[in-house]
């Protein structure tokens, strides 16, 4: 939303400098994105939050400035006794026929009037300049006036060419879906089901709350107009706007909730300007079709609740002045009789009117502030105008909760795992969860059996990765031009399941290296398992690929098996006997089989490892140890005998001589 300082100044005197004003407005919730100086003016660019339709108008922004500067806004005047008619009551001299059929559910309020004998032409330069200043292209005087009044007051207005409305019939209804509609700027749309439209006796003439129709628009030859100032249903407008991907100033206001009490004022202001700029005379009573009164509502604020939530006590005088600067007409009521001891201390909000037991401020909420619905909303009003940066800072006083929590995650385990990998030479990467079809196919997975995004930002990021492999391969290749030794790992989620019913996300720990061989990688993982107090054979998790050695571990599974409860084992008091046995065995016999066979021969063998391997000879390093006494050479000789016998029987292996 753009707002020129000169325009804002029409409604109040502004004391703050543009920079100070921008900072203060940001603090109170009107995010100031940009302040631009041009000629003799300053243009503010604001980001409007979804709860504040009123700030999509110059008068709304002026009211906000008034609230922070402690001033009152001068409302834009309307010439109530214009020579062409009494606009205050808008009594027509003649009446043109018009039949309106509407329905309060899809169109809560329909305000309008017919004006005859207007002259459509270029707008005067003051009007064109103003519109240009805030990026609104001038079209003709009638359209420009409706835009101007919308920008000033925040109620969208549409002007129809009265004579182009067939049979002078306007029916507000919902589209069946698929109907064709040509908008005022000449673009055709296929309407989604449920879009609120106005039809005459033949065709659709308006896409309500979003864009007017080409066939009923105001052009040079237009002589009679119908001005419509509606209140539209926010949800219906939003659904249609989303379905068409079509937004307008009007739709942004309607989907946030327009000032439902402001249609008559906007209509009068519009008529006033039309008389001044385009001439003409009113030719109907004011139409105002509605089921609700659309009047200001009451909202109570308990002073105790205010203090309880804010943590500070704002002086009552200050409270009243803030609320009153926001036009909320605060009325304080004190307990009408001495406080009694109540059997139930809990009070419902709003039950304070009669039998009130605490000081309460009753506010009257203007219809343009439909974001103020509950007590907490008023508390925010006070806090923001008081200034968040004026609050003291405290730390929570409650007890630290001791209970177990659902979804608990112990980040120390992640840290431990990553520390082992980094100290082994692997660097950590974070890659995207979303990958392309090509990525998935590159590792031999079928895209049709992979979870997919319905509305990806691009084909590059369309699928949920079922493995970390393609990203790690790409990461390695990216580093090849600048590095010789590349070892990378990632601990991240992978997404499994062929469709959403089976969808499951797991943490996966994967790595890739082009400078470590299979056994080095395997050793690192073995060490990782040892440190986590679990014992697994990682052979199945490691593969040799073109780019190097790749591993993947199911982290969620590791988590379920780890045991970080360490227990000290006293050191042995007696020395071990250590010997190396060179065993000759056929290459097809697996090392792990030989080792297991050696190990199981006697419980005095506390460790067996592979020391060396050359052609058919594998040298095993064997440690014999008894915890209570010294071993004798005889004992060891017997065990050795048993080992050799068993290896010979099972594998045809022998001791190298």
């Amino acid at each position, binding site marked *: 939303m753009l707002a020129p300082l000169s325009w804002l100044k029409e409604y109040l005197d502004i004391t703050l400098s543009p920079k100070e004003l921008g900072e203060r407005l940001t603090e*109170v*919730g009107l995010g100031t994105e940009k302040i631009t100086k041009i000629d003799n003016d300053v243009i503010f660019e604001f980001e409007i*939050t*979804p*709860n*504040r339709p009123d700030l999509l108008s110059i008068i709304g922004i002026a009211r906000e400035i008034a609230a922070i500067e402690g001033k009152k806004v001068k409302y834009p005047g309307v010439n109530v006794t214009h020579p062409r008619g009494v606009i205050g009551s808008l009594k027509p001299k003649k009446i043109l026929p018009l039949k309106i059929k509407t329905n309060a559910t899809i169109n809560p309020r329909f305000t309008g009037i017919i004006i005859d004998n207007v002259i459509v032409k270029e707008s005067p330069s003051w009007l064109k300049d103003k519109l240009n200043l805030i990026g609104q292209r001038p079209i003709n005087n009638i359209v420009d006036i409706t835009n101007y009044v919308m920008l000033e007051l925040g109620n969208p207005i549409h002007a129809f060419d009265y004579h182009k409305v067939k049979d002078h019939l306007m029916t507000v209804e919902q589209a069946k879906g698929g109907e064709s509609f040509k908008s005022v700027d000449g673009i055709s749309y296929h309407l989604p089901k449920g879009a609120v439209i106005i039809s005459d006796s033949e065709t659709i003439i308006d896409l309500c709350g979003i864009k007017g129709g080409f066939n009923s628009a105001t052009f040079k030859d237009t002589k009679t107009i119908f001005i419509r100032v509606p209140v539209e249903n*926010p*949800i219906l407008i*939003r659904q249609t706007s989303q379905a068409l991907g079509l937004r307008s100033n009007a739709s942004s206001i309607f989907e946030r909730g327009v000032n439902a009490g402001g249609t008559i004022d906007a209509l009068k202001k519009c008529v006033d300007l039309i008389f001044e700029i385009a001439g003409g005379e009113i030719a109907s009573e004011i139409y105002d079709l509605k089921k609700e009164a659309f009047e200001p509502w009451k909202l109570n604020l308990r002073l105790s609740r205010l203090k*309880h*939530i*804010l943590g500070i006590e704002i002086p009552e005088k200050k409270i009243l002045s803030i609320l009153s600067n926001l036009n909320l007409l605060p009325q304080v009521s004190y307990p009408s009789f001495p406080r009694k001891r109540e059997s139930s201390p809990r009070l419902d909000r709003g039950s304070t009117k009669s039998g009130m037991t605490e000081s309460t401020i009753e506010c009257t909420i203007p219809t343009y502030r439909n974001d103020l619905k509950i007590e*907490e909303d008023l*508390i*925010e009003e006070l806090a923001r105008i008081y200034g*968040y*940066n004026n*609050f*003291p*800072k*405290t*730390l*929570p006083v*409650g007890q630290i909760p001791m*209970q177990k*929590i*659902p*979804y608990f*995650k112990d*980040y120390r385990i992640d840290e431990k795992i990553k*520390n082992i*990998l*980094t100290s*082994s*030479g692997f*660097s*950590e*990467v*974070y890659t*995207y*969860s979303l990958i392309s079809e090509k990525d998935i196919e590159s590792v031999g997975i079928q895209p049709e059996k992979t*979870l*997919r*995004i*319905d*509305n990806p*930002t691009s084909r590059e*990021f369309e699928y949920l990765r079922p493995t970390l492999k393609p990203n790690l391969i790409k*990461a390695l290749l990216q*580093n090849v031009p*600048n*590095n010789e030794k*590349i070892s990378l790992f990632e601990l991240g989620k992978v997404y499994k399941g*062929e*469709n*959403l*019913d089976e969808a499951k996300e797991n943490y996966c720990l994967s790595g890739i290296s082009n400078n470590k061989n299979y056994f080095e990688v395997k050793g690192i993982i073995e060490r990782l398992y040892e440190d986590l107090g679990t014992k697994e054979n990682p052979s199945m998790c490691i593969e040799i690929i073109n780019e190097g050695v790749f591993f993947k571990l199911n982290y969620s599974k590791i988590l379920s098996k780890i045991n970080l409860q360490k227990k000290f084992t006293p050191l042995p008091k007696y*020395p071990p*006997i250590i010997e190396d046995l060179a065993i000759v065995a056929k290459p097809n016999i697996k090392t792990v089989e030989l080792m297991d066979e050696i190990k199981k021969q006697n419980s005095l063998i506390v460790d067996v490892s592979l020391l060396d391997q050359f052609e058919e000879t594998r040298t095993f390093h064997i440690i014999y140890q008894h915890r209570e006494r010294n071993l*004798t050479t005889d004992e060891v000789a017997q065990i050795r005998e048993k080992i050799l016998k068993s290896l010979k029987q099972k594998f045809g292996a022998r001791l190298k001589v």
Partner: protein
Amino acid sequence: MEESLIQIKNAAVSLILEAEDLKTLDEIKLQFLGRSGKLSLAIKDIGKLPKEQRPEIGQLANEVKKVIEETLAQKISNIKYQISNIKKKEIDATAPGIKPNIGHLHPMSQVLYEVVDVFKSLGFKAADGPEIETDYYNFEVLNIPKDHPARDTQQTLYLDTRNSKVTPGEVILRTQTSSMQGRVMKKVKPPLRIIVPGKNFRYEQVDSSHGFEFWQVEGFLVDKNVRLTDLFGTIDYILRQLMGQSIKIKFATTNFPFVEPGVDTYIECTVCKGQGCSFCKMSGWSEIMPAGMIHPNVLKAVRYNPQEVGGFAFAIGLSRLVTLRYQMDDLRLLTNPDLRILEQF
């Protein structure tokens, strides 16, 4: 007797193998082979044995002596060789050392673990939840019904529902870690102090300060007596712990449907030191931590009584915090696996 000889041998051999210098080896030699050394004393005792046992034990004693002497000699020559080797080359001590080949922990992890620790000091526990989330937990329980305009600020990526029973539009990639508020609060009662680090996804065009995947650390505290000043104090404490005591922090009003009052937190941009740059959209400030007092509608949705308990919630933009911490001018650097970046951390 036999046993004690073997013990002497084993003890001597292991000591010799462990020794690292010549002086220690001299001491070991004296301790075992010296005139009153352990082996010498043992040999003297052989004389006290019955005659028939003496030859056998004597032979064993000789073998033990031989093993110890040989081991000692071997070790001495090893050490002498090493010393002479170094001396021979006359090392240039100014040459750089040989660095161990150690990898690098990603800056995101480094900061994340710090964040977790700092919150732990305030009694917050970490929770971890799904990224594939329902519309209900991501939006509806947080007071953002369907067709609420606030959904525009969090454009959503929807999961393809082909071959499944899921209604299109109901399952999404979470747009905020706030989705865990409902999941946790529905299962446990206050008091609660929880943080939720995690990845989020939005339909967003990528630029230097926005990504379609980004990290947040959600946090929420629910208790009997929680005040807005507690929220300000907690944010202030956390950010100063993470970014340094001297950083500049300011608060502003904002609107998120799941908080009221709503708070936004800015810190002075570290990339340009508040001068204005492309990373902070020329404002000199970077939005880092949206927050607020939990909206009564959210408390009601998880069956808490808003008149009895209240709370605050916040979300730290972790990716942005990392870039601001290290003065990185582009969020995309965090997902770039270039070792020349990673090795800086």
